[in-house]
């Protein structure tokens, strides 16, 4: 089963849809039309491709982990999204959306951010293309990802600390949506994951498909075929959707790794928040629960609707790891491979490390979605 287009209503199986306040419906419909036409337009794709190559540094390498593979008793390969400009996979989506916003005549970008990587990427694209940029970030995240707040401001973006609710990603999205409701005529909401109302889950996956397409070619050259297992961390699920999309029509096992404190697929039940129907951590009354994760980028109670569909159909499975396992993996990769990962993809490695016996002798591809500079301060604090 491949990751195909959603229905015209934006459904992946029963999940997805476009649940937004009436004010935003025309904007979502316009975005759907614009994305369809841009994605079918060779000139648009050429422009995006050259930016990805000449500005963001694609293709990203595929690295063999020699020492760590020996230690784990399996063959581990890393898709090096950490080496992209701005330090994570987020730039793929943002360059696509920023070009699209320009095509729609919108001069301002608004974004939410958790770890700050999507905010930094959006601020970067705005600087590159001469657009205005406003980023909403929960107060808790502003404190724990201070470096990225400074980077965003340096790049000319306005950063608003959000003090409501959980003061993390969930509430940053609420605030970005409220901004968009008020400014929709001249603003594009540059959503940072495969979530939200249609067409975002589909569009963002398409912009990240480049990860999976490259990885599959690289694996074919290096391994002579697909790896046995493809692993990615899952917050909203964009880096996972990107790498999975290259492999869904093959035989590789697909594993998404969620934080134990934000396991929407693992612990959620279907519900609607932020524009789509998907698995959602909620209480017995339908109030959305607050997630709790050491990783700001995965600290989210929901998940993109296509992941709910992949889980429901069994094409991918979703596991979870604890903060302690993640910190151990963060150090493990640093020490054995000289790569300091972001805490988000450290979730993927934590699962691989825990399951190494079951994975013994197999070839495992991990999407290393970002680098760890932003997390060094936080980890230093924990070790003090």
């Amino acid at each position, binding site marked *: 089963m491949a990751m195909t287009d959603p229905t015209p209503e934006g459904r992946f199986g029963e999940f997805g849809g*476009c649940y937004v306040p009436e*004010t935003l419906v025309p*904007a979502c419909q316009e975005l759907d039309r614009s994305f369809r036409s841009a994605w079918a337009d060779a000139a648009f794709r050429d422009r995006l491709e050259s930016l990805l190559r000449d500005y963001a540094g694609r293709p990203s390498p595929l690295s063999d982990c020699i020492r760590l593979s020996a230690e784990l008793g399996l063959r581990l390969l890393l898709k090096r999204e950490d080496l992209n400009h701005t330090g994570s996979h987020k730039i793929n989506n943002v360059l696509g959306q920023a070009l699209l916003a320009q095509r729609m005549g919108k001069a301002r970008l608004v974004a939410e951010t958790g770890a700050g990587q999507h905010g930094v990427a959006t601020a970067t694209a705005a600087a590159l293309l001469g657009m205005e940029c406003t980023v909403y970030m929960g107060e808790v995240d502003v404190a724990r990802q201070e470096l990225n707040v400074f980077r965003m401001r340096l790049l000319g973006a306005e950063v608003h600390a959000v003090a409501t*609710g959980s003061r993390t990603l969930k509430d940053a999205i609420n605030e970005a949506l*409220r901004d968009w*409701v008020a400014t929709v005529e001249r603003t594009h909401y540059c959503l940072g994951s495969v979530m939200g109302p249609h067409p975002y889950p589909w569009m963002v996956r398409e912009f990240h498909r480049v990860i999976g397409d490259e990885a599959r070619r690289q694996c074919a050259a290096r391994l002579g075929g697909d790896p046995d297992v493809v692993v990615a961390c899952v917050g909203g699920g964009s880096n996972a959707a990107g790498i999975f999309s290259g492999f869904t029509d093959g035989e590789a096992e697909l594993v998404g790794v969620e934080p134990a404190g934000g396991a929407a697929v693992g612990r959620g039940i279907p519900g*609607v928040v*932020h524009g789509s129907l998907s698995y959602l951590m909620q209480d017995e009354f*339908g109030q959305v629960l607050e997630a709790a994760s050491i990783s700001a980028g995965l600290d989210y109670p929901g998940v993109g609707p296509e992941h709910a569909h992949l889980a429901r159909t069994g094409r991918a499975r979703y596991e979870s790891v604890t903060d302690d396992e993640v910190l151990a993996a963060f150090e493990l990769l640093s020490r054995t491979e000289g790569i300091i990962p972001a805490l988000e993809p450290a979730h993927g490695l934590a699962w691989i490390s825990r399951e190494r016996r079951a994975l013994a002798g197999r070839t495992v591809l991990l999407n290393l979605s970002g680098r760890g500079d932003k997390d060094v301060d936080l980890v230093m604090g924990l070790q003090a």
Partner: protein
Amino acid sequence: MTSRSPGRLEAALRAARDAGRKSLVPYITGGLDGWRPAVEAAAAAGADGVEIGIPFSDPVMDGPTIQAAGDRALAAGATPAGILAAAAELDVGVPLVVMTYYNIAHHMGHRRFARSLAETGFAGAILADLPLEESAPWTAAADEAGIETVLLAAPTASAERLAAVCARARGFVYAVGLLGVTGERDTLAASATVIAGRLKAVTDLPVLVGVGVSTPRQATEATTVADGVVVGSAVVRRLLDGHGPEGVGEVVGDLRRALDRHASR
């Protein structure tokens, strides 16, 4: 237009319009300290209907005042079933309309939520993040239970979209007065009377403007075109500030008198 017989909410608002009266529908957050006496006070002060909010954890259409009220109510233990049960004991003589977000209904189940509303005496429902395209499963259950689903119509909509929204709306059409979330503003946005006028041109349903209508002056300005207004933040703020049901009665009374004075001119 088919000859659908109007529900209680629509009938009440049509009767007001036929009598030359502008409709006033205040919003009160359910579960907030003193909310039930506040509903009674609003009705006594001349409301034509009352919207009762079921707070939701992620109210994306609401500004700071209604967000704060919802947070406070949730912290005090408010639940959907609890609010509905408490509303069932109200006897205020005007139709009640629940206002919440879709996940509350989805989670309880469309039919169960619709039936609970009917059983607890509600006439209508507004789901702030359930647009026309996604509304069918809910409206089927609501229609069956006799609950009138009020739909929002926004300044961003095309003429065709406004017509489609009006065709599916029951009770009244909620004209979103500005681009933005709920909250008090210094002046009425120019978009308020524009959207009301566009709606009046395509529907015979009562058209009420909400979002950004707070003061008597804004209400009278909006109703130069619209059939009525929904006033939320200005009302809820009285409760948040500790002015209690009396404070709510005062704001609603002031709005009532202004609307009546204006209508009789």
